[in-house]
């Protein structure tokens, strides 16, 4: 079973990073969002510093929504999903692996880019590290919740927008506790407060509910 899981992980990562995979789109979009904010707000350093972490979170959330439709949509189009459903592997494990591969290809680069982009907003180095840490916990939660939407719309063409509409409401708690945990980490210099624990809980919750719900959605979609 580990061999099959590793094969899915390897294949999805290879597909993301090769030509046409779209792994870079999220980071570029993240960069665009974060870059235009200072121009829109104006050169008010104090304001920028205070809203910087929130901007980073909003940028990361929107960037995470891009490309969610590819988790299952690409496989449904070319018939690979049929063969995945016939693999001697629980569908939940397949859904977990594919969501993990999606996060590694699109979510992790956002976390890595955060300290660099934060410099544009004039956020201090400590606060940048805090924001990156919170995003490291928060973006997998968004990816795994997003995989539910991806599974529900697997057979629909151009489902990206529909997934965003379906998934954004469920990511609001992640956004609330993520920004709260970041703010606490910056103002009180304590990383592991209540908000962080709740963010962590949301992430763990999404690791369980995401694959189970995605597998159920795929089964209903196929009637299997």
């Amino acid at each position, binding site marked *: 079973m580990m061999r099959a899981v590793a094969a899915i992980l390897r294949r999805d990562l290879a597909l993301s990073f090769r030509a*046409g995979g779209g792994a870079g789109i999220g980071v570029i979009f993240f960069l665009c969002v974060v870059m235009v904010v200072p121009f829109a707000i104006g050169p008010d350093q104090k304001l920028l510093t205070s809203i910087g972490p929130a901007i980073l979170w909003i940028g990361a959330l929107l960037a995470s929504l891009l490309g969610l439709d590819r988790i299952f949509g690409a496989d449904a189009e070319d018939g690979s999903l049929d063969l995945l459903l016939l693999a001697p592997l629980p569908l939940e494990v397949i859904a977990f692996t594919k969501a993990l591969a999606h996060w590694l290809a699109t979510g992790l680069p956002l976390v890595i880019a955060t300290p660099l982009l934060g410099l544009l907003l004039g956020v201090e180095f400590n606060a940048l590290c805090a924001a990156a840490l919170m995003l490291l916990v928060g973006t997998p939660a968004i990816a795994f919740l997003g995989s539910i939407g991806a599974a529900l719309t697997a057979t629909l063409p151009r489902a990206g927008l529909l997934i965003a509409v379906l998934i954004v409401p469920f990511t609001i708690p992640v956004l609330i506790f993520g920004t709260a945990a970041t703010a606490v980490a910056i103002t009180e210099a304590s990383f592991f407060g209540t908000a962080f624990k709740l963010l962590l809980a949301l992430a763990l919750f999404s690791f369980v509910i995401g694959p189970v719900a995605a597998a159920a959605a795929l089964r209903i979609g196929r009637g299997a």
Partner: protein
Amino acid sequence: MLLTGPNGSGKTSLLRQIAGLLPLDAGTISFAGFDRRDETHFVGHAAAIKEALTVSENLAFYCDLYGSKVAAPDAALARLKLGSLASLPARVLSAGQRRRLALARLVAIRRKLWLLDEPDTALDMEGRETLLAIIAGHRASGGMLVMASHGTLDVAASRTLALDTDAKAAA
């Protein structure tokens, strides 16, 4: 078993139902002595090929995914005359070569039940000969096969089920 019938008569639907990829309106499908997910090959109209991966990576992925009873993937590619293309990205393959790559799964991974949906689509004469030889080998080793075809493949089926557009024959 050979499935015949005009377009739209339900050959593909029946194959997908046997594979568990389409719900049944009524009745059940049972498998004697094996688990569907462990022993079924499905080759449908979509070849399930990732264009960004190379030919050998495409096959190797399914060998890893389907696990244990894997013969040599290289031999499977050679048998379907894809050996010299193994390191090329699959996007350069022609329709017939894509079909051959999908069929290479049958050779590379041993499974009892094959569900083939018009497997000779886009194949040349020589490809059909190879396919017939592969099918004969599978049957000789005790394998089962349900194939939808328009009679373009010259197989001696032990049973033929002719589907009709009006009255859907029960499986």
